[in-house]
C-alpha cells in the first residue's frame, strides 16, 4: 500500500555570501516525490538572500540561481497547497542534492540561519 509522507532536510548557513552543498538520501521504499518546499528559521533572510539548485537522482529540477522565494509559501496559502508540484518524480537512487547560495541583499543583515528543504513523498508501506 502507498502512503504519503513528508521529509525534512536541514542545512546551516553560517557565513554571509557563502555556498553550501549537501546531499541527502531518501529511504529505499519512497517511490515518488510530489513536491518541494523551502523554509527557514529566519524567513526574511531566506526570502531576500537565498538561491538554490536542487537535483533529485542527478536530474536538475531547479537550476543554479533559482531564487528561494519562488519555492516558499506564506501562511496565507492553505497547508495542502504549499508544496511546489513536481508531478510525481521517481527518486531513482534516492539522492537529493541541494546547493544553496547566500547573497547579500540591501534589505537584510546577515546572521547564521537554517534552511529546511521539505519533500512531499509517496512511500510503499512495508507492513
Amino acid at each position, binding site marked *: 500500500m502507498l502512503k504519503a509522507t513528508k521529509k525534512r532536510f536541514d542545512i546551516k548557513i553560517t557565513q554571509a555570501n557563502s555556498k553550501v552543498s549537501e546531499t541527502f538520501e531518501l529511504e529505499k521504499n519512497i517511490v515518488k516525490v510530489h513536491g518541494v518546499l523551502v523554509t527557514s528559521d529566519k524567513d526574511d533572510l531566506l*526570502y531576500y538572500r537565498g538561491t538554490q539548485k536542487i537535483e533529485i537522482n542527478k536530474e536538475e529540477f531547479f537550476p543554479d540561481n*533559482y531564487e528561494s522565494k*519562488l519555492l516558499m509559501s*506564506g501562511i496565507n496559502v492553505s497547508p495542502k497547497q504549499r508544496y511546489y508540484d513536481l508531478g510525481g518524480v521517481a527518486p531513482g537512487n534516492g539522492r537529493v542534492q541541494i546547493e544553496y547560495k547566500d547573497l547579500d541583499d540591501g534589505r537584510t543583515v546577515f546572521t547564521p540561519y537554517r534552511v529546511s528543504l521539505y519533500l512531499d513523498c509517496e512511500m510503499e508501506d512495508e507492513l
Partner: protein
Amino acid sequence: MMKEGVIITKIGIKQKGERKHFQIKLPKDTKFIIGVEYGGRLIDRPEMVVIEPRPRDEGHFTPFFKRNELIGELKLQSCEEANWFYSADVLANDVNLGLGDFSQSGFPVNDFSHGNKRTEEIVKIDAESTIIQGWYLDVLGKTKNRDIKYEVKVYVWINVEE
C-alpha cells in the same frame, strides 16, 4: 517525452533610467516556451530605496490602499514572431498584503511570512529559433532620481523533448 526546464537570466541595473537589451538562449531541443516569471534582489543599501511616506494633507481623505512600487518594465520577444509575447511591470513586494488584517500588532504582515504562492505566468510560444530578445527599462532609479544598483532575474520555463 516532454520535460520541463527553466532558463535563468540576470539583468544588472546600475543607473537611473537604464535600458537594457538582452538575449536568452534556449537549448536546441526546446519545443515550447511555457511560462515566464521574474524575481530580483537589491544590491544597494536599503535607505537608498525606502519609500517615503506621503505628507498628511489635512482635510483630505488618505486612502487605505498604497501603491506598489514599480521597479521597471520587462518585455520579451521571440525571434520568429513579430511583437512582444510577454510584457510586464516589475513590481516590488505587495505593500497591501496586510490590508484588512487587524491582528497585525503581534504578527506583522510581510511577504516572506504571509506571501501567496508564486507561480509563473503561462504563455505558449513555439521555440523554433533558440533566441529570445529581451528589453528592460529601469523605473525605480528614475522615480527616486538617483542611481540604484539592483538585479532582476527572468525565469523562462520551457518544454524540452527528451
